[in-house]
């Protein structure tokens, strides 16, 4: 109906003087934008189907293609933005909830970009990481408050289980089902080579990846998909997923169409039936209930593995984290509202939760004030984009960071934000075999290793500049941070001074 018509968001611009009609664009577009016209010997493009994933642009051997934002817009209106109006049209036509993927794209403040890092000058020496040793290793888990000795005066060395990481970064949870086998293989191999951990997400652990167990965090989410004894034993740590930054308070729904073959077997869900993760864990209605699950999992794994509790950053995050820290959990992972997802209701993704920077600072401060900071390690996630974000997070109090969007970008994701369609042209967020094979894990793993190797160098340079030679010495060291363009309240919550102070 004409009232439903929405002009395509993107235009496919083909430079006919450069196009050699090799048909790579046609073959590579799962959205079927491009087609070959044998009569004319030329390629046609239907921009209505284009999601701007840039696959055709990247593979075109003569750079004949570009995708541009359409300039056909509705009359400008500061209140009724183009997107807002079109969303009304879509809902008026469909009567459905709008779905979106990846992180919140709206213009909220990015506090990382309003925090500056210190460096040494004159009165204290900076350190050159190329010439002097620099420790990026971290251990996540419960730490003792003080040194204790036995009756012979020897130090008691037995610590609660710790997760050792060669650098303070891990790949955060992305389930097999939401991402492809090859994406998981890339993450698993890279984590092993880097000496860090990746996370299975809630979809279980594919039998092929048990070999990467020492670098795997196995997740137990509200749907309990793929959870069994061997699964729990396989991982280096177990994560209880209470919430996700992109959709706090919401469960998950992997459509039956994606529950096929290995995904079905790994999730322990019958083929073709929807895998629905309830919004809450139906056995957790309080911190005491959470404690029961934490100890059930510890009991099941002979107290050998640290237990992570992952929560979304929401308004009362400091109080929530305080409760979690008393539940017996070894590590708390906090996921900020800009974190990604394979699919979430648009309104939830764009409006629920709070920024990780504020949540992290508030939690670290609260746990210190209550004297229970050593009970847990803190992992910050939800749009950690680069090495300086990692350094800032650590100075704000994190023990390590979770990255996922950055990892997917390294694997080829172009952030077109249409994961929910299942037609990922880069072979990441799809289960279609002809698309999955587009991600060669040999290349994917190498690119992830490259990315984090680069970040490690940058982290060392930043640390060295501050005259600090270990991650431990930067942890919670907020004197190394200054705010820029932030108001009193924001500075107070972040616990940092303004630049110039």
């Amino acid at each position, binding site marked *: 109906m004409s009232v439903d018509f929405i002009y395509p968001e993107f235009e496919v611009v083909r430079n006919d003087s*450069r196009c*050699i009609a090799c048909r790579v664009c046609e073959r*590579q577009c799962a959205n079927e934008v491009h087609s070959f016209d044998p009569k004319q010997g030329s390629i046609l493009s239907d921009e209505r189907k284009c999601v701007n994933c840039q696959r055709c642009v990247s*593979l075109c051997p003569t750079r004949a293609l570009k995708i541009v934002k359409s300039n056909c817009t509705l009359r400008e209106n500061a209140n009724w933005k183009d997107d807002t109006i079109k969303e009304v049209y879509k809902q008026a036509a469909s009567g459905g909830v709008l779905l979106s993927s990846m992180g919140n794209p709206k213009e909220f403040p990015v506090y990382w970009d309003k925090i500056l890092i210190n460096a040494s000058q004159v009165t204290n020496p900076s350190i050159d990481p190329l010439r002097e040793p620099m420790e990026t290793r971290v251990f996540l888990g419960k730490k003792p408050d003080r040194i204790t000795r036995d009756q012979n005066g020897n130090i008691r060395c037995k610590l609660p289980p710790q997760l050792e990481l060669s650098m303070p970064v891990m790949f955060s949870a992305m389930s097999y089902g939401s991402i492809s086998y090859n994406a998981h293989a890339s993450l698993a191999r890279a984590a092993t080579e880097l000496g860090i951990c990746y996370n299975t997400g809630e979809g279980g652990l594919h039998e092929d990846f048990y070999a990467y167990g020492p670098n795997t965090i196995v997740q137990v989410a509200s749907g309990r998909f793929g959870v069994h004894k061997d699964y729990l034993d396989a991982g280096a740590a177990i994560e209880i997923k209470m919430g996700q930054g992109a959709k706090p308070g919401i469960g998950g729904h992997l459509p039956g169409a994606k529950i096929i073959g290995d995904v079905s077997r790994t999730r322990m869900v019958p083929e073709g039936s929807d895998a629905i993760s309830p919004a809450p864990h139906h056995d957790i209605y309080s911190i005491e209930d959470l404690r029961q699950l934490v100890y059930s999992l510890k009991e099941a794994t002979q107290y050998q593995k640290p237990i992570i509790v992952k929560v979304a950053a929401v308004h009362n995050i400091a109080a929530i984290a305080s409760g979690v820290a008393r539940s017996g959990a070894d590590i708390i992972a906090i996921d900020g509202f800009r974190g990604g997802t394979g699919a979430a209701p648009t309104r939830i993704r764009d409006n629920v939760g709070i920024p990780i920077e504020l949540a992290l600072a508030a939690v670290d401060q609260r746990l210190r004030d209550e004297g229970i900071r050593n009970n847990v390690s803190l992992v910050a996630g939800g749009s950690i984009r680069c090495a300086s974000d990692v350094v800032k997070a650590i100075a704000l109090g994190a023990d390590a960071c979770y990255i996922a969007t950055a990892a997917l970008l390294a694997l080829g994701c172009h952030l077109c934000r249409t994961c929910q369609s299942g037609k990922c042209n880069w072979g990441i967020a799809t289960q279609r075999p002809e698309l999955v094979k587009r991600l060669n894990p040999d290349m994917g793993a190498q690119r992830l290793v490259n990315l984090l190797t680069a970040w490690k160098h940058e982290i060392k340079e930043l640390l060295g500049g501050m005259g600090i030679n270990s991650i431990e010495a930067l942890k919670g060291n907020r004197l190394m941070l200054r705010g820029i363009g932030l108001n009193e309240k924001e500075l107070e919550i972040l616990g940092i001074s303004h630049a110039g102070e």
Partner: protein
Amino acid sequence: MKRVYVNEQWCLGCHLCEYNCAFANSGEADMVKALKGKPIYPRIKVEGTELVNFAVSCRHCTDPMCVKSCIAGALSKHDGAVCIDHSKCVGCFTCILVCPYGALSQGETGAIQKCELCLENACGEPACVKGCPNGAIVYEERDTL
């Protein structure tokens, strides 16, 4: 010796190797100038169905049937690579008939063409390998063919 191998598991059937091959052997510096509006004569060809694809090019056999069968002496082995002297080829296509891999074909001029590992052109290394977006075509040393 180093040879071009194809990992069918990662071949996407995008056919870019064919265009990179045709361009590398065109003698032109610009792909548009080399290939626009013309039929291409690649020495590597992608075969297969929608789900399985495989780029086929000369295996540079240790004991090549094409060299044995060439009636004009146009095909020969140099440092392990099977090479062709176009000026000697009489276009009898015996080599096409005997090649078990289907790796030889008729070129633009009517003479036989085949993969010469880009050793003879400006590319210097196999263009199909260099341009493969998924690492499906590799140029490496393996124990046996």
